C-alpha cells in the first residue's frame, strides 16, 4: 500500500533540446486509481516509466511510500507493470505462467501456491489453471497477465494501455474488471490510456496531459463539467465540445455572447464574473457540449432567449440518440438529441442552449474564465 508523490518531475531525453515531461506535480493517494490520459506523444508512457524506474528522472523527486526512489532500481521499487502486449509463456500452463516470476525470485513453493490460488480466485480463472495460453480467449489471457502482476503483491500497479489490443466489446468488459480488481486489491494503481472514455469510466482521478504538461488533474466529473482550458474541454467528451468564436458584448446593463447569426444573453448570476474577468469586449470562445443543445419544445418554450437557428447537414444515428451536425453561420456544431423526432438534411432546426452549462474561454490564452464553475457554486448557494 503506498502513496506515490511526484514533485517537479522533469524528463529530458538524451539529445533532445526540450524536456518531454515538464514540472509534473501529482500526489497520488494510497489506494487511489489515477489515470493519465492525453494524445499520442504527450509523455504518458515516459512518466509511467519514470515511476517504474525504467527511465532516469532528469530533475525532481519521486516518492513511493515514504521512500525517495529516484535512485532505487526498478526491481526494488515494489511495483508491477502490465503492458499492452502482455507477455505469456506459450508452453506453460496458466498456473506455471503465474508462478514463474515468483519461482525466479525463489519464493517458497507453498507461498507460491497460496498466492496463485488466491489471484486465480480474484480473477475468476481458477478453472483455467491447467490450460495453456493457446486454449484461452483474449479476455482470459488478459486476466492471466494481470494475475502474474497480482501474485507479486506490489505496492503499486502501473498499467500502460493494457487493453488497447482487445476488441471493443472485450475492452469495455475488461475496464469494469480492472475497476473491480482495484476495489478488491485495495492497491494504488496508475493507468495510462489515450482513450478519454476509458479514463472517464475508470479513474478516481484523471490527469489530462498535453506536451508533457499536466493540464488538469481532478475527478472525472470535475474535468468534464469544469475543464480548465480549451484543450481539456475538447479532449474529454465524445462527440467533442462545440467551440464557437465570438465576443462578449455589454449592452444596456446586459451581457451577450455574439457571433455571426448568434446572440445569447448571458445569465445575470454571471455578470460579476464577466466584469471581473476583464473579458468584456474581448474575443472569446464559447464552449457548449453536444448534449447541452436541446430541441425539446419544453426547453425552448421555457428559455426562448437561448434559441439559435441551425441548418442540419448530417444526421448520424446512434440508436436512442442522434448526432445532428449543423451549420450556424460559419460554424459547424454537433447536437446530441433524442432519436424520437424526425430530422432531415437541409432542414432548419431550433436548438436551445443550456446557458448554465456553457463555457467561456479567453480566445488568446484558451483558458476558461470559470463560467461553469461560477455557475455551479451559485447553484449551491442559492
Amino acid at each position, binding site marked *: 500500500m503506498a502513496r506515490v508523490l511526484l514533485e517537479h518531475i522533469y524528463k529530458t531525453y538524451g539529445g533532445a533540446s526540450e524536456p518531454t515531461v515538464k514540472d509534473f506535480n501529482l500526489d497520488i493517494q494510497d489506494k487511489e486509481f489515477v489515470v493519465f490520459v492525453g494524445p*499520442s506523444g504527450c509523455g504518458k508512457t515516459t512518466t509511467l516509466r519514470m515511476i517504474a524506474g525504467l527511465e*532516469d528522472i532528469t530533475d525532481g523527486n519521486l516518492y513511493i511510500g515514504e521512500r525517495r526512489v529516484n535512485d532505487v532500481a526498478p526491481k526494488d521499487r515494489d511495483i508491477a507493470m502490465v*503492458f499492452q502486449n502482455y507477455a505469456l509463456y*506459450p508452453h506453460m500452463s496458466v498456473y506455471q505462467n503465474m508462478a514463474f516470476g515468483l519461482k525466479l525470485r525463489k519464493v517458497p513453493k507453498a507461498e507460491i501456491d497460496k498466492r496463485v490460488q488466491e489471484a486465480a480466485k480474484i480473477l475468476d480463472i481458477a478453472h483455467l489453471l491447467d490450460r495453456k495460453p493457446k486454449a484461452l480467449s483474449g479476455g482470459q489471457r488478459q486476466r492471466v497477465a494481470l494475475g502474474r502482476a497480482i501474485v507479486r503483491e506490489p505496492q503499486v500497479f502501473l498499467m500502460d494501455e493494457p487493453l488497447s489490443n482487445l476488441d471493443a466489446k472485450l475492452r469495455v468488459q475488461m475496464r469494469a474488471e480492472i475497476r473491480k480488481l482495484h476495489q478488491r486489491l485495495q492497491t494504488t494503481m496508475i493507468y495510462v490510456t489515450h482513450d478519454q472514455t476509458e479514463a472517464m469510466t475508470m479513474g478516481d482521478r484523471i490527469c489530462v496531459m498535453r506536451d508533457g504538461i499536466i493540464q488538469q488533474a481532478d475527478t472525472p466529473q470535475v474535468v468534464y463539467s469544469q475543464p480548465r482550458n480549451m484543450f481539456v474541454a475538447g479532449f474529454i467528451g465524445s462527440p467533442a465540445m462545440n467551440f464557437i468564436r465570438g465576443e462578449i458584448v455589454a449592452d444596456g446593463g446586459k451581457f451577450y455572447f455574439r457571433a455571426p447569426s448568434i446572440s445569447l444573453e448571458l445569465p445575470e448570476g454571471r455578470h460579476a464574473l464577466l466584469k471581473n474577468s476583464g473579458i468584456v469586449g474581448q474575443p472569446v470562445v464559447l464552449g457548449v457540449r453536444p448534449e447541452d443543445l436541446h430541441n425539446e419544445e419544453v426547453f425552448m418554450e421555457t428559455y426562448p432567449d437561448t434559441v439559435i437557428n441551425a441548418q442540419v447537414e448530417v444526421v448520424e444515428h446512434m440508436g436512442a440518440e442522434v448526432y445532428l451536425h449543423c451549420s450556424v453561420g460559419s460554424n459547424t456544431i454537433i447536437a446530441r438529441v433524442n432519436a424520437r423526432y424526425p430530422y432531415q438534411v437541409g432542414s432548419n432546426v431550433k436548438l436551445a442552449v443550456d446557458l448554465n452549462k456553457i463555457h467561456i474561454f479567453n480566445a488568446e490564452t484558451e483558458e476558461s474564465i470559470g463560467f461553469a464553475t461560477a455557475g455551479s457554486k451559485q447553484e449551491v448557494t442559492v
Partner: protein
Amino acid sequence: MARWAKALGLRYIFDEAGASSEEGVACGSWRLENGVWQLGVGDGVVRFADWDGPAEVREALTWTLLALQPGDSERGRHPLAAWYDHCRQLSLHALAEQFSGEAAEGAAMDKGGPELGAFTYPGYFLVLSPLLRRDEASDAWKTARELMLEVMRATLCDVWNKDVADGTQILTYVPAQAFDTAFDDLSLWTSDHPPKHADRTRTVVDHLATAIREEGLIDVAISVSMPVLEQAQLRQAILSLAMASRLHGAQRVGGQRVAVFGDQPMAFLLSAVPESALRTILAMVSARSASNPEEWPNGWMELTRAMMRANLNVSEAARAMYVHRNTLLARIEKVYEETGFDVRVIDHLMVLHLAALAMEQQGAYN
C-alpha cells in the same frame, strides 16, 4: 602465436593497427598481398613471409589464434562470440563491405568448434543487451542475464548462448522452429491480420522483450540476424546481426528496442550516406517548403510514419494514431501548408520519409 610459428616453421611480423598506412585486414580474415599472407587479428595484422598458406592451415590458425585472445584464456572464447565482438568494433561501412564480400565468397565456418555442428538450421542469432541504468548495482548484470535466459527458455526453448561485449550482452542462437511454435501457441495476431512469415519472428521477439521487461523490470534491446540457412552462413549471419544492432543507435523513436536485420533497408542506406550528403538532402527538401525541417509542425514524423504503415490510407492511419479521421485530415493539411508536401501523395510521402530518416540519422551523428 610464437608456439604455432615454431611448430609450422613460419616467420611472421606483427603490425599494429595504424602503424602502416594501408587499409587494415578485418579480424579473422586473410588477405594475400604481394605474395604475403596477412591475417587480421583485431588490433593489427600478422604477416607471414615465404609461406604458401594452404587453406586448411590458415583456417586452423584463425581459430586457434582468435579463440584464445589474451584476457579470455580462462573462459575460452567461442569463435562466434569472438567474431561478434570483432564485428561490433567495425564501422557500419566496414560491416557492410564485409557483408557483401562475405556473400560473394560464401566464407565457410565449417571447421569451427564442436558446438557449431549442433545448431539446427534454419535459425537466427539474437543479441540481447539489457539497458541498465548507470547507477544500478554491479550485480544487476548477473541478475539480468539469468532472467533474460530464463524468459527465453520459457518463451522459446533452451538456447545456445555466450556472453559477448565484455559480458554486457548475450549472444544466442534460436532455431526458426522455436519462433514458429511460440507464435502459433500464443496466437499473437488479431484474426484479420495474420502476419507473414518474416513478421512472425519479429512479433515473437517483441513479445520476448515485453516478457523480459515485465518479469524483471528491465528494458532490453534485442537485435536479430538474417535467417541462417546453413552452417556456411554463420559468419555472415553474425555480420548481419552486428549491422542490425548498430541501427539501434539511429533509431530513437518510440522506444523501439527490437532491430531485425532486413527490416530497415532504408535506414541502413541512409546510415551509409555521408553527413554532408544528408545535409544536402535536407536542404533540397526544405527548398520546397516555407521553413526548415527543424521548424516543421510537431508530429510530421509520426504522421509520415503512420501514413507509410497505413499504405496512405487516412482512416487506417488515424486509427493507428488514435485520433479522429477529421483531426488527422486537419494535421495533414497543416503539414502540407508548412512543408509543401502532402502525405497522401506517394511521391511526397516518400520524400518526407526520407527526410525523417535523414534527420534521425543526423541526430545519430550529433
